[in-house]
């Protein structure tokens, strides 16, 4: 277990902050338009898929924690190196970094697209991406504790948006949910699978775990965070399912934002414009946490300073952003990413736990 990490106490944070981290890492761009994707699979039973996906995150989180408990203070990258040896471990680490980087990329490109479709149709993608990257670089260089701070604000902002859902609720038709369970189980599970893109982010636990000061208190904030995310998704899903009629929902790309377009205040005519700009603060912790995760992995493979890393990372992302321009391309990217993410976050943790456990037993016997 030579891969154990020694984190300086000044870099650690209290376990209860995990609640905000998990919640803000999960809620990002997915929530803007996950409804129709799930609806296409599970029809008006889509909310059941949301609940089941939420449940799945709890189970996976338990497996993640169990894996992490096998070690004193280590992250996924170290576990990889320990379990599979240096070479295979580093290979898997690079794959994981690649996965995290594509998550970062997906969040950014989807947000850029929303801004372009709703607010500034003539704004160039590169400009938006560059500005976002600069903000990310700025916050990233502040260190993990700054990122955790941003998570807290992101949490507050996403909670503020919830009451606004009350406006569309004036138009809901609860009967749309009936008859319950008209979709069969396979369709509902397909919906669960489609939830992946929306629900990713909690795998951050794998990497952030060593930085928690009081590791024995991890359970509660972790599961509360996951639970809150599920509740938010469920609320948004239920309102969407009853507010839109089926075909309308399956044609609405960003159903959550369209929900906001009926909101009208005496001082703001078009709420969704504000919401979209607001959203940058909601995705900012996502982006920061993803870069940070990628950074933690990279330093296990090559020796690089944080500053250097973030600039190189940003530059590569910036160049890559030129490759996606149309809705169809972005959609395709999302679909591919979501498929990979499904195996990475829902299947792999269980597998890793089994392997790590066996390895652990073998080690003990040797000793």
């Amino acid at each position, binding site marked *: 277990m030579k891969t154990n990490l020694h984190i300086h106490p000044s870099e650690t944070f209290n376990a209860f902050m995990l609640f905000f981290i998990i919640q803000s890492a999960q809620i990002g761009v997915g929530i803007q338009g996950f409804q129709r994707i799930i609806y296409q699979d599970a029809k008006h039973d889509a909310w059941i898929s949301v609940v089941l996906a939420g449940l799945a995150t709890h189970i996976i989180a338990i497996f993640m924690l169990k894996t992490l408990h096998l070690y004193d203070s280590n992250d996924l990258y170290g576990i990889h190196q320990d379990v599979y040896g240096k070479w295979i471990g580093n290979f898997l680490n690079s794959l994981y970094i690649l996965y995290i980087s594509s998550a970062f990329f997906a969040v950014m490109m989807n947000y850029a697209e929303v801004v372009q479709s709703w607010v*500034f149709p*003539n704004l160039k993608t590169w400009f938006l991406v560059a500005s976002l990257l600069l*903000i990310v670089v700025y916050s990233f260089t502040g260190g993990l504790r700054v990122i955790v701070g941003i998570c807290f604000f992101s949490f507050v902002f996403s909670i503020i948006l919830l009451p606004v859902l009350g406006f569309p609720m004036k138009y809901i038709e609860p009967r749309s949910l009936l*008859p319950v369970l008209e979709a069969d189980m396979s369709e509902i599970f397909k919906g669960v699978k489609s939830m992946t893109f929306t629900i990713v982010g909690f795998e951050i636990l794998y990497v952030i775990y060593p930085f928690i000061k009081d590791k024995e208190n991890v359970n509660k904030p972790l599961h509360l965070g996951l639970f809150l995310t599920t509740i938010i998704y469920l609320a948004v899903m239920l309102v969407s399912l009853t507010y839109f009629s089926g075909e*309308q929902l399956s044609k609405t790309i960003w159903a959550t934002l369209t929900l906001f377009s009926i909101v*009208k205040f005496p001082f703001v005519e*078009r709420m969704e414009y504000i919401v979209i700009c607001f959203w940058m603060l909601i995705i900012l912790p996502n982006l920061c946490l993803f870069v940070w995760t990628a950074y933690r992995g990279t330093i296990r493979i090559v020796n690089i300073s944080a500053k250097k890393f973030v600039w190189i990372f940003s530059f590569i992302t910036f160049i890559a952003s030129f490759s996606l321009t149309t809705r169809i391309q972005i959609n395709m990217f999302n679909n591919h990413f979501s498929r990979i993410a499904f195996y990475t976050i829902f299947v792999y943790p269980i597998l890793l736990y089994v392997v790590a456990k066996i390895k652990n037993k073998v080690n003990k016997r040797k000793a």
Partner: protein
Amino acid sequence: MKRILCFSVLILLGISLTGCAEVKLLERVGLTTLIGFDLGEKEDVETTAVVRQVGTNLESTVSIISAENETTEGTGSKINYRTAEKIVSGQVRGVLFGEELAKKGIGHYIDTMLKNPTISDGIYLTVVEGEARPVLEFQYANIPEIGEHIYKLLKQNIQNEQMVSSTLHEVAFDYYTVGRDIAIPIIKRDQELVSISGIALFDSSKMVGTLSVEDSFYVKLGQENFRAGRNEIIIKGDDLPSSLLPTQVDEISIVFDPIKTKKKVKLVNPEQLEFDIHIKMQARILEIKQNINVGQAKNAELLEKAINKRLESEIGRVIAYSQEVGSDIYGLGEYYRSVVRHSNLTEEKWHELYKDLNVNIDVDFTLIRSGVFE
């Protein structure tokens, strides 16, 4: 030092970011407040836009511009050719459809509006008796801006629940729901005013019939539970027992406003398609055009019975009419879908079924008060 430099670069970038977006200064754009669509003479659609231009001294001028083209967005650019300011649609409050166009179908327009992010889901859609353009172009003596006026007219009546609601969202909801059809207000020019004159019924996207403006009460009653909305009904003298009235009359008028209504729909027979609609209503009487003392329990009960009967027959008439024209404004198909598992309902299938289904209406009217003077 380095930090300050970094920060100032960020701020500079922020400023240039706002410069990058398209600037829409109020004085430099024409705000479209209302759009009218008619069937074009030569091409597919004629769009009439009510455009408001705000000057630097906050004075505003209103111009009505129309253009014809194959597509609605095409008319938009044609309208732009005729104005000094760029036309923007972020402040659109309402859309009017000419009658002929509505009869041909409005589905495409709903679709196009939903696509456009600058158009809010809260705008009102209406049908105009005849054509939209003359209604907008007419020089009303007391209406400074026709766009705002029509919006307020609709908004006021819809919010007071005197008229069926017709926001873009609700119309789109009805349009995309299988087993539910659109019902939206009709307006017309009434001398120097614009007035709501009825309700247009649609068979999916085509307008197929109209109901009078008085019937909006019954349409709303079947559609949702509501609170306000004054209504006048006329009860035939024969329906009232002679003990209630000192002298025999042909008919009496009663005005009441429902405090609370509750609608229950039940599919009693899925094979034969028979629905039970049970409406519970609590109301207060505002006016009776005959001196009936409703303070007495016996009188009130008799009156309630007569009102029940009248309401039942009126709702029955509205349903029968909607069945005749093939427009399921009460969304009975939606009920069918939500009750019958794996119904695989399609629009065609439902309209086929809708024509022959049976509806039993049962109204339970309770008089809760009748003002402060007996």
